[in-house]
């Protein structure tokens, strides 16, 4: 029966343009009717495709065995293989054609697990699609240094707060004296190298009281202006600058992208005018919403959460699962992680990596800092990317969008819930009316899916698949491959920034009958959503999501 389900869907959408509005597959099955040859041809096509699907299924299921969901009716398309990946590159290590074909491949079938660590940095914008191998090497060196600097800062903060925890706490509660501690820290870093000090200062100021932020940072950027020409390695800064320009041209993100600019590469010529905007945003929004959370709080919660992080990654990453105890304890010691009790070495090691990177991130993006749920987003990256500094920048790339999920002012979440609600409204007015009746049309029940990007609903391997397909969409948009590019390639769904939201709506729509007939309150729907955990099939979900994109993206976006 499963193959008919597949065929119905696949062919149905294939025929839809020719056949007008008679969507769905029922009529395809009834091919014996009066229209003669044409339908017979369709039937043949149906049979052939069913055969192909079956063959592909056999290959894939024999290869991936346990990785596919037992509920799967739809089978995943072929993932990007190592061979294909290598073939995409020209001799100087550039992706041919700016990576269009590569992205197309990932969008439809994901990536083979053995090459994820090489491919993800491209999807997450760590490397530009058009970069050469030499440029990437240079970027890697630079990014590594930046990460190590952030780590040194974390250590100093930790040392300060450990040295005199209580006193510091009192000072912080009193108001703005924490900046004094940071100044002390800065000086010691300053003595190492001037370049570093400038950057460190911007980092440090970003995490102190916002009221005192503006002037010093302006000075830093002003001083950077004079050193830009010497410092800029065009290969290094090209990526950052072009990305930031894209963002700042987007009115929505001009408000939402402040902190990462503050603390990334100091060589940004037009930063200070942008900063004026940032500081006013901070004054109005962040300061008003600021809670007692500060860096010391984050350091504490990060450690508490790291040792109880989800351990599903272990089966995925045998090398890290087999980490020797000595090394695990060493990593824990390096980030002053102590309360791991009787945790297995691999989980201690993983927890230590979580702490290192989350802490660095909190410093890098102090507006967001740390929020529970962020470790859910980092864990899969750690399982795939073995070097901390690379994992950090991949995480930064992921968080460029996901950071809005953790904002104090809820804007990011509300926008997304609103889109899910709209998708459901346009697609299924019956279900939407039911939700309205229950006062659940705000779709709050999918909140968790939005915040941790389906990590709690999908099994580990399937989460990775969803994310990389989603990232490929975002990378395509970032690289400027709009709808026309994909139209030419006969890919049905154009890339969208919000594939996740279409997938979330799809998961709800898959349960529409149950929700309409059985659930009479928001609580029950939320429980239904929670109980999707482990029951979803990512490729079916993506197919449904892509169908929604095709029919609705003009109305939604």
């Amino acid at each position: 029966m499963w193959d008919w389900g597949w065929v119905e869907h696949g062919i149905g959408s294939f025929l839809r343009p020719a056949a007008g509005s008679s969507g769905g597959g029922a009529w395809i099955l009834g091919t014996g009717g009066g229209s003669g040859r044409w339908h017979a041809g369709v039937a043949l096509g149906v049979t052939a495709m069913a055969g192909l699907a079956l063959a592909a299924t056999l290959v894939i299921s024999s290869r991936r065995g346990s990785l596919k969901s037992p509920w799967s009716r739809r089978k995943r398309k072929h993932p990007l293989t190592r061979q294909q990946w290598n073939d995409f590159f020209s001799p100087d290590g550039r992706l041919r054609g700016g990576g269009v074909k590569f992205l197309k491949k990932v969008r439809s079938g994901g990536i083979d697990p053995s090459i994820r660590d090489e491919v993800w940095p491209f999807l997450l914008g760590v490397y530009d699609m058009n970069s050469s191998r030499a440029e990437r090497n240079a970027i890697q060196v630079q990014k590594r240094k930046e990460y190590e600097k952030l780590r040194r800062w974390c250590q100093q903060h930790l040392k300060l707060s450990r040295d005199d925890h209580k006193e510091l706490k009192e000072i912080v509660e009193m108001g703005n004296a924490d900046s004094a501690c940071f100044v002390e820290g800065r000086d010691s870093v300053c003595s190492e190298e001037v370049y570093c000090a400038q950057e460190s200062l911007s980092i440090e100021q970003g995490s102190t009281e916002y009221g005192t932020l503006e002037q010093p940072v302006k000075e830093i950027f002003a001083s950077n202006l004079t050193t830009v020409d010497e410092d800029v390695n065009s290969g290094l800064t090209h990526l950052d600058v072009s990305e930031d320009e894209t963002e700042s041209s987007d009115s929505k993100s001009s408000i939402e992208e402040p902190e990462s600019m503050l603390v990334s590469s100091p060589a940004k010529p037009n930063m200070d005018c942008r900063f004026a905007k940032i500081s006013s945003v901070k004054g109005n929004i962040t300061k008003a919403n600021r809670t007692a959370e500060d860096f010391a709080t984050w350091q504490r919660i990060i450690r508490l959460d790291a040792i109880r992080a989800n351990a599903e990654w272990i089966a995925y990453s045998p090398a890290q699962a087999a980490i020797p105890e000595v090394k695990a304890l060493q990593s824990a010691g390096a980030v002053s992680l102590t309360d791991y009790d009787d945790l297995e070495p691999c989980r201690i090691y993983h927890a230590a990596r979580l702490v290192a990177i989350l802490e660095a991130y909190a410093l890098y993006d102090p507006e967001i800092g740390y929020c529970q749920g962020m470790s859910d987003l980092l864990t899969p990256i750690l399982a795939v990317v073995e070097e901390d500094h690379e994992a950090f920048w991949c995480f930064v790339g992921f968080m460029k969008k996901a950071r809005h999920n953790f904002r104090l002012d809820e804007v990011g979440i509300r926008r997304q819930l609103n889109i899910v609600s709209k998708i459901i409204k346009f697609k299924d007015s019956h279900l939407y009316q039911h939700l309205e009746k229950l006062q659940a049309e705000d779709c709050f029940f999918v909140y968790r899916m939005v915040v941790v990007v389906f990590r709690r609903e999908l099994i580990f391997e399937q989460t990775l698949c969803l994310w990389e397909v989603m990232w490929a969409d975002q990378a395509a948009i970032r690289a400027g491959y709009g709808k026309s590019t994909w139209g030419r390639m006969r890919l049905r769904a154009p890339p969208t920034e919000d594939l996740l939201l279409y997938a979330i709506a799809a998961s709800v729509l898959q349960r529409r009958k149950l929700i309409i007939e059985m659930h009479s309150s928001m609580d029950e729907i939320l429980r239904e959503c929670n109980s999707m955990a482990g029951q979803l099939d990512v490729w079916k979900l993506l197919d449904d999501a892509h169908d929604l994109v095709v029919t609705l993206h003009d109305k939604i976006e």
Partner: protein
Amino acid sequence: MSSRARNLTFKLVLLGDGRVGKTSLVLRYVNNVFSEKQETTVQASYLTKRLVIGGVPITLSIWDTAGQERFHALGPIYYRDADGMYLINTTALLVYDITDSDTFLRVRKWVKELQQMASKDIVMVIAANKSDLIRSKKYDIQEAESYATTIGAKLFLTSAKFGTGINDVFLDIAARLLQKKKSSFQGLSPALPRKGIIVVDDEPEREPPPKCCS
């Protein structure tokens, strides 16, 4: 409808700082399981438990919430009643970690917020969790107890790890809610809880991962 009317449903919301053991308390109570490394709760999860008190079957709808303060800005959806009123038929179970006085401060903060937002006679119960750790060090709950008295709440020592004190907490909550309900029956017959279709002994929203370190 008459059988429905007998099935009383009460809402219960667990509030408290991160990692004080909210999820563990609920999972111990509802499913009698305990995980040393319970994953962080994001947003909130929802479980139900049916119990009988003095011959009256009642259902507790339990909302387990995320601990980090930031999530609480996200709309009080889980303590909103169907009619949009706050905590009319709802109890707050405030949880803190007995070994960490900061988490008790967080309870006090919650109480303040609830008192401002909810009706005056909101039922509040405090659970001083991780009582199994008392053996290693003496912790003073005197202050917490007298504080509980001042706000009209009851304080229970609990250990989700060993399962001690847990039933008492929930039984007390249920009994107090029932009492409240009964006394409100004296007046104009109030709307009964909205629904009666409740599954007994729900699955937790997420089982601990079956896999283990190799």
